[in-house]
């Protein structure tokens, strides 16, 4: 079924919208959640929560790209779930590693003012991604959007893992400079 039709089902408040979403994007959402949580059950719960969130937000939303609309919800829910779980026990190590890596790009201080500038910061992230060459952008997002392990990225691109690590290091340097330039850190 086409995305438009699925979105139409949500607007018509047809419960089959969820079934159709699961058929078409269940695996996609599950892979995002699993990368973050590294646990089947937690990933499934995040995907189910994604459907509920989509049900509650369409309408008023009418997403033009349903896959990433759902993917963003799954990612957000999964990272939140990881935070709650991680307060209790270890697990979901890719998030720990990614957060450690991203430390290089931030000041580490709690800046309330910045939170108020969230939209501005999102625009800055967009500009930064626009500025990256295609391969760097893809690898950056595989690591920090999809939270994929560097070994997996290396296999996908036929790079050595050390090459991926050094590329990511370089890209993070660029991101830090980009944020410094805008006085965000």
């Amino acid at each position, binding site marked *: 079924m086409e995305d438009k039709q699925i979105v139409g089902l949500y607007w018509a408040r047809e419960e089959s919208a969820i079934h159709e979403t699961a058929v078409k994007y269940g695996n996609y959402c599950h*892979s995002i959640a699993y990368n973050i949580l590294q646990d089947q059950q937690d990933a499934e719960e995040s995907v189910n929560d994604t459907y509920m969130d989509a049900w509650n937000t369409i309408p008023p939303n009418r997403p033009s790209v349903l896959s990433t609309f759902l993917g963003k919800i799954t990612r957000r829910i999964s990272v939140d779930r990881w935070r709650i779980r991680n307060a209790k026990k270890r697990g979901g190590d890719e998030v720990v590693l990614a957060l450690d890596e991203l430390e290089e790009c931030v000041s580490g201080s709690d800046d309330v003012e910045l939170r108020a500038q969230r939209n501005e910061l999102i625009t800055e992230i967009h500009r930064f991604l626009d500025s990256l060459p295609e391969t760097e952008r893809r690898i950056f997002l595989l690591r920090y959007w999809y939270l994929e392990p560097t070994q997996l990225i290396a296999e996908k691109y*036929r790079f050595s893992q050390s090459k991926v690590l050094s590329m990511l290091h370089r890209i993070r340097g660029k991101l830090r400079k980009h944020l410094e330039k805008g006085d965000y850190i």
Partner: protein
Amino acid sequence: MKSKELLDLIGEAQDEYILDAKAPVKKGRPSWVKWVALAACLCVAVMGFFPLLGNHESTFVLTAYALSEDNSLLSLKMEEGQSVPITTFTAGNGMEGFVFSHKNQESDPALLGSIIITDTDFSPYIMADSLKGASAEIGEIDHIDMEKTQQYIFFVPSKGEPTPYSLTISIYDEETSTAANLTIVIEYDENGYSAKIDKINSYEIIGDIDELLKPYQEVLDRLNAEYDYKLYIPEDRKYSVYDAYKDLSPEEFEKQILEELDGSTEEFESNGEMNFEIIDITPQN
């Protein structure tokens, strides 16, 4: 700002970039090619890739399979640029995938009628086994009576991978000493899945590959000695390495390798192809 906040902000990346990051990697050759092309190529004592001037595409007939609504099997000959409808099939072990086949040119009778399995992520479990082992692993494919004269490809899209899918099938024709890489694109729309051959690259195989690679191997040997690198060309990638570098002089090749190792972004972008072939196993500190 804290790293958690930055992670959240990255979560708001542009939709097109999020999708693009998951698109199949187009550069380089998929490593499962070694299963097909190289198993076949290594049986023959001739080598080196040169693009053909003539048209040998007709040698490489590819068949796609689909089930009609009444579950009868349709086998459809594929032609470059023309879409044919396809459906998924279930294998004995429960895996679902698309099925293609081509005339088997394999010299080893033990490999006749065998199945190659691949997916867009080249999953290790698929890579790990031998041809016969992989075939045994998935069992028989529902609705398909495998013919000994055909080589079957069972393509399993990765979990969560959005369409279109892309895969490359390598076929070697012993009679004409010709190999071809056929790039197949699978799309999904309201009528279901369809597949088409997007591109055919065919090559005649002449000369000794080691001889052809010699100047490049010498460069690698020198770099290894000079900089204490451990660069090598894997046995099963010799043809594709040669194909990727044959237009470069050894000096240009050396320059690219060094830039590559140096991690120069701009060069990396323009010469990304080379990354896929030569392996760097230099220990990292």
